[in-house]
């Protein structure tokens, strides 16, 4: 294959990519709006039993005014369990990640993915203009978006 052919192939591939990816631009397009919230004084035992049988791994911790104070992930729990012998007596505020990284609904998806990968985290709470939690974007939400993207790409390359 000569150079110019390869160039034009790249350009058409890029155009297809752009068209497909423009459908999902910001966090609002991929986030989960239903979030589980807890208050800081819930016990660690309650969080463990909440997560053990379900398919979510992150709980947002909010104060009485609905403002975010932290996030508890399954990793936080794991760490607490392996380090402390008296974990049954701990509460959420003692093990949560304080001041977590957050995003806005308008944040580009690529920025959210970059944050999750580089900070080695799996979730980003989404805040509205009043700084209240309006959703959460997790690595699973992003993986779903990626999977749909891959499928559309395969369709377009099969049909062209």
């Amino acid at each position, binding site marked *: 294959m000569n150079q110019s052919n390869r160039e034009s192939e790249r350009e058409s591939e890029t155009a297809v990519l752009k068209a497909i*990816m423009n459908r999902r631009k910001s966090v609002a397009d991929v986030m989960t709006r239903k979030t589980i919230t807890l208050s800081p004084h819930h016990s660690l035992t309650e969080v463990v039993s909440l997560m053990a049988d379900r398919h979510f791994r992150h709980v947002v911790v909010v104060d009485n005014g609905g403002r975010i104070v932290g996030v508890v992930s399954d990793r936080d729990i794991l760490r607490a369990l392996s380090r402390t012998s008296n974990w049954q007596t701990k509460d959420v505020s003692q093990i949560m990640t304080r001041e977590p990284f957050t995003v806005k609904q308008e944040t580009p998806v690529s920025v959210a*993915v970059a944050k999750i990968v580089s900070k080695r985290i799996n979730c980003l709470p989404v805040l509205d203009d009043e700084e209240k939690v309006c959703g959460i974007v997790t690595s699973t939400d992003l993986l*779903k978006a990626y999977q749909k993207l891959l499928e559309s790409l395969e369709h377009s390359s099969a049909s062209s």
Partner: protein
Amino acid sequence: MEIAPGRRFGGEPGRPAATTCVAEIMSTRLVTLSAHHTFGEAVQLMTDSPFRHFLVVHADGRLAGVFSDRDVLRALGRTPNWQAKNVSGVMTHKVFTVTPETPLSVAAAEMLSRHINCLPVIGNDGKVCGIITSTDLLRNYQKLQACVENNSTEKKPGSV
């Protein structure tokens, strides 16, 4: 517990292929466990390392199971005598696996539908040759997204 010397498969620098197969992004740097390691040893290893998934392999290199942070969480939530368990008593025995030739869209779809984050990669000889995790997939998603964004701003300014 052993860490195999690893290498990563990469696409062309700065231009990841849009549709690829597992071999191109899988990680061949594996941390493996044996079924007889204690639960405590495995949790300690997990806390000390950046990985959340450990492949449990037989002496001949065939896969015995996967030991993940979710397995730990489940064990802690359900069994009172978890200290006495060993890896084989906690790990996932029936593991869904892929081959190096599996398309990424299939790998992502399987992870999502099965609610798992890692797929062991089994070579033609029936032995474990790598692992692909949701983080590997997200890293590729991010590159893809960034690549398109760069192309649209740098290559063709002003035109669509």
